[in-house]
């Protein structure tokens, strides 16, 4: 990407105040309410540096997790949680197709898969649909946020999320998850993780632009012989299934989604409500009729 002309205006290394619409300089995106924004996470570019995890923790002032060694490759973070909103997963190919240790190292992605996971900002979002208080809401940037001053910690969003993202923090009793840096977007800044990513594996932008860019990237990879590359969470792709039309944070993957701990075909849980309620009500109606007969039958 070429350096935007406006960048020439800011040559000093310490700035007196924030640059207006800084996102135009850092990622070429103008952030305006009413438009759809999201993340395109290209796993073929991820080097597993965890800069996104650190940037997220720093910007959002999230506390550290309890320190532990998981023994699961370089992944000591483990999973997304109430206090971890970016999580880099590490998949090591320790066996080849025959079950032996691989003896050939490929020049591309060698025997590693790495992915920076995040809240998918689903559209429609199961967590938001499940929230009875309205604490979970869709922002003016078409992302999903939680209002901690409204959440009463019913934990229903936790069971609704098909990606195991949102969690209620036992310390404050409220639900927490990635906000897609709602505060930064309001101030015209690119989200912290995307800005910190040194390889552009995490790209922030307007959704339609990202979709187009992602499709081109898949085509390029295919033409270079990487025919296993595909999109996850783009419209009509795996991940955007069962009533979920697309994920505002979508991915480019090169192995089955489950390898990265993602479901192939997540479903919108709210689709089961109507028939469920009807089944229950009909049951009670039938039992009431039975009760009527039981009470009035002759001796």
């Amino acid at each position, binding site marked *: 990407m070429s350096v935007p002309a406006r960048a020439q205006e800011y040559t000093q290394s310490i700035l007196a105040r924030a640059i207006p619409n800084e996102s135009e300089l850092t990622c070429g995106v103008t952030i305006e309410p009413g438009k759809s924004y999201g993340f395109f996470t290209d796993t073929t570019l991820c080097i597993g540096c965890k800069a996104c995890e650190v940037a997220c923790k720093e910007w959002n002032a999230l506390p550290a997790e309890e320190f532990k060694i998981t023994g699961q490759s370089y992944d000591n973070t483990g999973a997304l949680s109430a206090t971890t909103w970016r999580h880099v997963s590490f998949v090591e190919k320790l066996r080849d197709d025959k079950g032996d240790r691989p003896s050939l190292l490929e020049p591309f992605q060698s025997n590693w898969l790495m992915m920076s996971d995040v809240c998918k900002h689903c559209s429609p979002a199961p967590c938001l649909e499940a929230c009875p208080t309205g*604490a979970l809401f869709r922002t003016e940037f078409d992302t999903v946020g939680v209002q901690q001053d409204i959440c009463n910690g019913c934990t229903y969003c936790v069971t609704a999320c098909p990606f195991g993202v949102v969690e209620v923090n036992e310390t404050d009793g409220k639900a927490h998850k990635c906000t897609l840096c709602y505060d930064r977007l309001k101030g015209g800044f690119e989200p912290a993780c995307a800005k910190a990513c040194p390889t552009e594996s995490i790209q922030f932008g307007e959704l339609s632009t990202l979709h187009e860019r992602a499709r081109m990237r898949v085509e390029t990879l295919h033409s270079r012989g990487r025919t296993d590359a595909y999109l996850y969470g783009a419209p009509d792709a795996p991940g955007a299934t069962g009533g979920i039309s697309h994920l505002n944070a979508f991915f480019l993957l090169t192995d089955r989604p489950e390898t990265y701990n993602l479901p192939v075909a997540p*479903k919108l849980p709210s689709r089961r409500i109507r028939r469920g309620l009807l089944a*229950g009500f009909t049951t009670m109606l039938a039992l009431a009729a039975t009760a009527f007969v039981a009470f009035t039958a002759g001796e």
Partner: protein
Amino acid sequence: MDHLETQNAPAYGRRTPVSLQRPSARLGAYSGATYYERPALKPSDYGQLVAAYLFIGGIAGAAQVIATTADLANRSELKDIVRSGRYLAVAGSIAGPAFLIADLRTPERWYNMLRIFRATSTMSIGAWTLAAFGATSGVALAADILADATERPAFRMIARIFGLPAAATGAIVATYTGTLLSATSTPIWAEAHPILPVLFGASATATSTAAISLLAQRSGVSFRQHNGLRRLAFVTAAAEWLSTRMLERRLRLRRVAQPLLASPAVAKTYRGGYLVLGIVAPAVIEGLGWVMRRRSRTFSVAAAVATLAGGYLLRSVLLSAGKTSALRPVDYFTNAQP
């Protein structure tokens, strides 16, 4: 550049496009790779407080349905059933939400449950239904009591009129909790759709029949009332049994049954506690009473207590099975296939 890389690629073994079919036989459990067997979902945190609510809410809702049905039968000898049912409904609509609120992580903000209405949230639908149920049940009970105290027929009429919306909302209160669990991403609950609300309805009616008969025993139940309740108990036990057969069959077919039917502690409680103690034992005890042609109080009380205990265990066992289910990535990846 592009052309060079295309030439190089085959030397390292060609990559094939990723097949998104289930890597095992059709309808088999997912048998492909997982991410270090780490959970792909966050489990629900519902424990005994929620189990108690599911149990109490079920009794309260179904008790109002039974009371209103008995009221519409319009027979003076069913009076105790009507009154007991209405009492249970009001008591449950006070006690039930108390358990729900106690389970919130920020209980002092319970009123935010009524801040908005969201038709895509079973929790929201339940909160509002519960509120309407409590209000109409309260009026129906008060009018019923006043009718007795003042002997004015107008009160009886009010009780009967308010009994209708109370019973309608009661039918939802007794069963929406099944949908509440099914409308989540937890594999075992999601696959139990829409059997769970049917099972919850049958169990709610069985437990409330038991509770009503316990209450009615105290006020000296008539022979006719007793027989009516006993017949209802048989029918609900049969309905429950049938629903559990359907549920088990479905869970096995979808390969997500392990947490309920095969994990040692839960499976034991489910079979021994719920199926045997909660459904079979009461039917056998009541059957014996019938065969012996006795109106034995001990028999009825024993059957009712067993039914109630079973009903509670069902809720508690389903909640812990859900927790285990969400933690098993294989179950979720089996459930989340195209």
